[in-house]
């Protein structure tokens, strides 16, 4: 990799970082608007046209609020908790391929923060660390409700991580690669019909999305911050921007979970008829092959973000539809339903691969 592409790659990382933050910011707005529409209300419409600068107003509010430290709190860890939640949330978007590559002459810019061949494991590892932010914050608050919230978060995350990993293993068995970029490219072979993994793994996808809800602590699995039982759960004692960071981290997590789902199960930056479009552009429109490829790549970025937004919308839609689970129901669902289902899914996938019903994947790129 030349120095110049290294510089470009740095820029891509910065842009990915910025986009994650921006999307998380506007998720707070979108959540309220969607909640309002689902409940026949109007939603925020005061700050700017259609309330578009509402997140800014919220930020000002959060920043100017009083910083409060509960007595007996472990001060260092109390501050460290929300920071950790935010850091882990932001780190996972680094390996997500938001697009194929752009080519300017000799320079090739991959529209992905970093490409590592264990991308999926990386995401998985970072997600599993996300719970520390909640646990440390909840414990350091010196409040029993916070502690209960933290403990709920920990056991919930561990339980659902298992089913999530097992659901992913079925995908890995088909793909033969842990790299998110490879998995994306496999889902659209030129000259063949476009197959997203969700078609081959419907059961795995359902398991994965349920686990994604649990991992991001969203309703119906938002028991760590269940206000009817635990005041505010792990962030009961938090105020001002530390509280803001927790709320923010949740939205970054939603964004990352949506991105992972769209990459693994919904073809990522692929969209139907992309190769036909590329050859049409380069043959009958007289564009060079690089320019045609660049146009396809940019359209791919649009496609992946469309998918991500659809998933974010789905997260919010579910939140404003379903009531919260009870804790024992949550655990029963995780351990006695999802995990056996996921194992069954693995066996099924293995059977289908050995009998050749799911064709072997060609490394075509």
């Amino acid at each position, binding site marked *: 990799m030349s120095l110049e592409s290294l510089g470009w790659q740095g820029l891509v990382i910065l842009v990915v970082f910025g986009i994650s933050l921006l999307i998380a910011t506007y998720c707070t707005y979108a959540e309220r608007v969607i909640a309002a529409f689902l409940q026949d209300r109007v939603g925020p419409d005061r700050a700017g046209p259609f309330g578009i600068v509402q997140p800014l107003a919220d930020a000002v509010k959060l920043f100017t609020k009083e910083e409060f430290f509960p007595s007996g709190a472990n001060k260092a860890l109390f501050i460290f908790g929300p920071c950790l939640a935010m850091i882990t949330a932001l780190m996972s978007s680094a390996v997500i391929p938001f697009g194929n590559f752009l080519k300017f002459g000799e320079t090739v810019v991959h529209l992905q923060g970093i490409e590592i061949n264990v991308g999926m*494991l*990386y995401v*998985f590892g970072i997600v*599993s660390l996300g719970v*520390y932010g909640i646990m440390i914050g909840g414990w350091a608050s010196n409040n029993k409700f916070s502690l209960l919230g933290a403990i709920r978060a*920990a056991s919930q995350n*561990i339980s659902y991580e298992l089913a999530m990993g097992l659901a992913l293993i079925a995908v890995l068995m088909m793909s033969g690669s842990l790299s998110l970029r490879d998995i994306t490219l496999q889902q659209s072979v030129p000259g063949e019909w476009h197959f997203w993994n969700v078609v081959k793994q419907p059961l795995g996808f359902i398991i994965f999305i349920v686990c994604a809800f649990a991992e991001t602590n969203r309703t119906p699995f938002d028991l760590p911050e269940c206000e009817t039982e635990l005041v505010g759960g792990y962030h009961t004692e938090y105020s001002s921007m530390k509280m803001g960071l927790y709320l923010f981290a949740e939205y970054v997590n939603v964004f990352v979970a949506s991105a992972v789902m769209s990459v693994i199960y919904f073809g990522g930056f692929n969209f139907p008829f992309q190769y036909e479009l590329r050859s049409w552009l380069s043959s009958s429109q007289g564009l060079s092959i690089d320019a045609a490829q660049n146009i396809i790549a940019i359209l791919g970025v649009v496609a992946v973000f469309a998918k991500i937004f659809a998933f974010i919308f789905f997260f919010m839609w579910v939140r404003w539809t379903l009531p919260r689970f009870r804790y024992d129901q949550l655990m029963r669902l995780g351990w006695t339903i999802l995990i056996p289902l996921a194992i069954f899914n693995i066996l099924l996938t293995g059977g289908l691969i050995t009998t050749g019903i799911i064709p072997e994947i060609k490394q075509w790129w």
Partner: protein
Amino acid sequence: MSLFLFLSFVALLSALGVVLAKNPVHSVLFLILTFFTLSAHYLLLNAQFLAAVNIIVYAGAIMVLFLFVIMFLNLNEETEPQKPMLAKVAATVSGGLLLLVMVAALRGVEPTGYNAATFDSQIGMVDRLGMVLFKEYSLPFELASILLLAAMVGSVMLGKRETGERNF
């Protein structure tokens, strides 16, 4: 090299922190930091898979359970029981013995260094690892998995409700 020195320094420092920290929660957090530096070492060795799995399994799952239990027990400086002198001496002796064994075992090892001509940068990659694990070492691998399965069955047995037993 400087990265390696820095990582080793942090690793040793946080490992010391695990032992010396008064608060058990701090100890656990230091231990997690140690795992992170170890993972970074794996990355330096180009073993991405090992690094990721180390974080997922140790930092992501086992340490969460550790923290979980410690938070439940609410251990802190005041409630920590004073260990008798004998236990302290015994701990020091056994720790020293372990150190002795490790030094003795590693003394004979001659670091081969690295030869740029024969060095294979792909050696730690996940597909290579898989090949080795499932071809050359498939029997130990399967044995280990049976061991884990047995442990799993055992824990399910322990956790199962018995008839007539009260659950809260």
